[in-house]
């Protein structure tokens, strides 16, 4: 490549890992957050199931 072109693009390769890293990390953080929410949701649903069981037992015992 002629020398002027090499100089024009000289910073690109050095910058690339940082740019890619920035985008990747942003997506990672957002996914981690979604994951945390999902985990909380699953836990709450488990608690809901436990409560429903308790209610069924209490209803059955009364009968």
């Amino acid at each position, binding site marked *: 490549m002629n020398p002027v072109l090499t*100089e024009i693009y000289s910073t690109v390769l050095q910058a690339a890992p940082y*740019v890619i890293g*920035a985008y990747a990390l942003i997506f990672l953080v957002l996914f981690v957050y979604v994951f945390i929410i999902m985990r909380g*949701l699953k836990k709450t649903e488990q608690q809901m199931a436990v409560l429903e069981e308790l209610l069924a037992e209490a209803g059955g015992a009364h009968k």
Partner: protein
Amino acid sequence: MNDTKKAVRLPEAGGMWDKAAPFALLAGALLATLGFILTFTTAPLVLGATVNGVELIGDQMVSNKLLLSQKIFYFHVPVAIASMLALAFTAYYGVRFLMTKEARFDTCAKTATETALVFIICTMVSGELWTRFEWGVWWTWEPRLTTYLILMLLVIAYFILRNAIDDPERRASYAAVFGIITFVDVPICFMITRMIPSSVHPVVFRTDSGMSPDMLVPFLICFFGMILIAFGLYRLRFRQARLAERVALIKEHLED
């Protein structure tokens, strides 16, 4: 007598907003991806330092270095704006809580602050990488980075405060007050660090003023994408928080 009090409409999960939420999340993700692709294809690289000599690239005469690192801004700025927007909601719900004392608004405020924290982390991470590349150092006390550090500390302090109080109403009141103060403090912090000329450190920023339409379109797409993602995440978290609250309420009733 109580009927004359105007009923306050409380935000609830599972309503119209929640039906829209998954679509918003999907739309946001799509927009963000589209923006991402566009930034790397159609948006022109930004000009850096001048170079000796001129070359014909594409259909333009270029005589500067072309910078890839500026591409970080296409996500960094929208994420930052999204975090400030989330914080605005914290302050708004804080005000509504203080006016009505309804616990629902406290849940909204807490969820909004969580969303803000997530986006602040995104901002800090992307900003950190940009700083490392641009200035070659991992940290410098320049206005934007400093303001975001302070903002992050304030939001973390918000959650520490919430953890340290047991009484629900007091906790909600104090959190609301602190949320409002935080929201007012952040613009002040930014302005003060920016407007005082520093005798030691040069205040240099590359603000994205005057973007060409080629750059503006991907930027706006990324921006709306991020806002929609933020909204979707907020509704999702709010829904989960409401569900947990209802479960706790039922548990209390069953124990009676």
